[in-house]
């Protein structure tokens, strides 16, 4: 399946919306840091093709929730279900995490600085025939001018697109975005909104943390407001 989303082209493309019952579920997720209970029996669903937007003040546990659902950190208790696979906590043993089916785009992006943008995107790809998909992503995200630059030679907006391409080339089913709009100008934010909209149409489940109300309203199928924790 190609990546003809139409950020640079105007023709809309219809994407299959199969497997709509697949989802990531967080069931009774709790997480504390010392005496501070950051998450208290949180229940959440992220369906494929839909975007769950999470808002709230700093320290309200947004990133903790992301990290728990994306299985980057183990919750103290609760259950994370990724499609048909269950991860029950507390769980002391190491378990095989569902990456890159589930993947994360961080606020700070964390592009590997010793690799070019192109190498950053393709490093994780195991099959060798990714050229067409890469070309489509370069075209779609408008990365032609800086694809062979190093991250430190690229602007924040450009690096953001590289980080998104790095996630997309892995054909994930769910992508977690951690405040990626916070350092962007209005035009760049609008581009992100369009990208997220395209990803939803490609049947990718989105978990999106943002401070921008208008972003939440435009992309969110459901919006969760988190309050400051005790």
């Amino acid at each position, binding site marked *: 399946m190609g990546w003809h989303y139409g950020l640079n082209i105007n023709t809309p493309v219809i994407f299959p919306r199969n497997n709509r019952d697949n989802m990531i579920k967080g069931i009774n997720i709790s997480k504390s840091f010392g005496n501070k209970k950051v998450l208290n029996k949180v229940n959440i669903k992220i369906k494929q093709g839909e975007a769950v937007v999470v808002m709230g003040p700093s320290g309200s546990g947004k990133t903790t929730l992301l990290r728990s659902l*994306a299985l*980057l950190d183990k919750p103290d208790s609760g259950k994370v279900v990724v499609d048909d696979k269950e991860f029950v906590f507390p769980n002391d043993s190491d378990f095989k*995490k569902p*990456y*890159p089916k*589930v*993947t*994360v785009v*961080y606020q*700070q*992006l*964390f*592009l*590997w*600085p*010793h*690799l070019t943008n192109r190498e950053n995107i393709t*490093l*994780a790809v195991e099959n060798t025939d990714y050229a067409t998909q890469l070309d489509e992503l370069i075209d779609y995200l408008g990365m032609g001018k800086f694809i062979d630059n190093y*991250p*430190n030679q690229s602007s924040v907006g450009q690096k953001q697109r590289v980080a998104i391409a*790095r*996630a997309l080339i*892995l054909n994930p089913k769910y992508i977690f975005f951690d405040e990626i709009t916070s350092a962007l100008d209005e035009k760049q934010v609008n581009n992100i909104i369009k990208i997220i909209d395209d990803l939803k149409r490609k049947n990718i489940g989105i978990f999106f943390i943002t401070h921008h109300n208008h972003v939440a309203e435009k992309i969110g199928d459901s919006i969760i407001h988190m309050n400051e924790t005790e």
Partner: protein
Amino acid sequence: MSILEIIIQYREGFAQGLLVTLELCLIIWLSGLVIGGLLGWLSSRYKLYFDAPIRLIAFTLSGIPVLVFLFWLHYPLQSLLQIQINPFITATLTLSIINIFSVSDIVRNGIKDIPKQFIETADVCGISHKKRFWKIELPLIFRHAISPFIIVQVNMLHMTLFASLISVDEIFRVAQRVNSIIYKPVEIYTALGIFFLMISLPLNGLALWFKHKYARDFSEK
């Protein structure tokens, strides 16, 4: 007698001394790279068993002057154990130990200073541990460690001079011998200085170049 004439006249002695110095250096540098690199990696990976002892030894060694350590291994220790070891081996062992723990420190810090999010990002991209090590961790450690590593190796080259004090016939001892015959200290030690500059300056320049080239690498933490 000019510097050149002295070098030509005593070329065999100088060549022999140079060879011993380079031999010393090669062993010290290689042991530092291989064993020090390994200890640094073990120290960062298995904190419980390796980190504390290695750091303790490195810390203790950093407080002992090289000459004291060398003399201690050469005289009291051999006397205590009632053995006699070739001074070349003693010098090599002493300087290798110092280099090994210096390099292990550099490597451990290099590993520690890689932002863990670079590793986490590799994980969420589904990159295998093996690929992650070769393609991400090792290049980042290299960039972080190469400059201090080279500077330490240049210092080790300079420290080989101490070997002359326990009768190792390296280049400094040869220079002293020649000087005792012809008494031309200005010419002889100038030649020695130029020799060390010829090796040290390019290496120091290389270290600076790496430092400048890679300093920006962690700016995206």
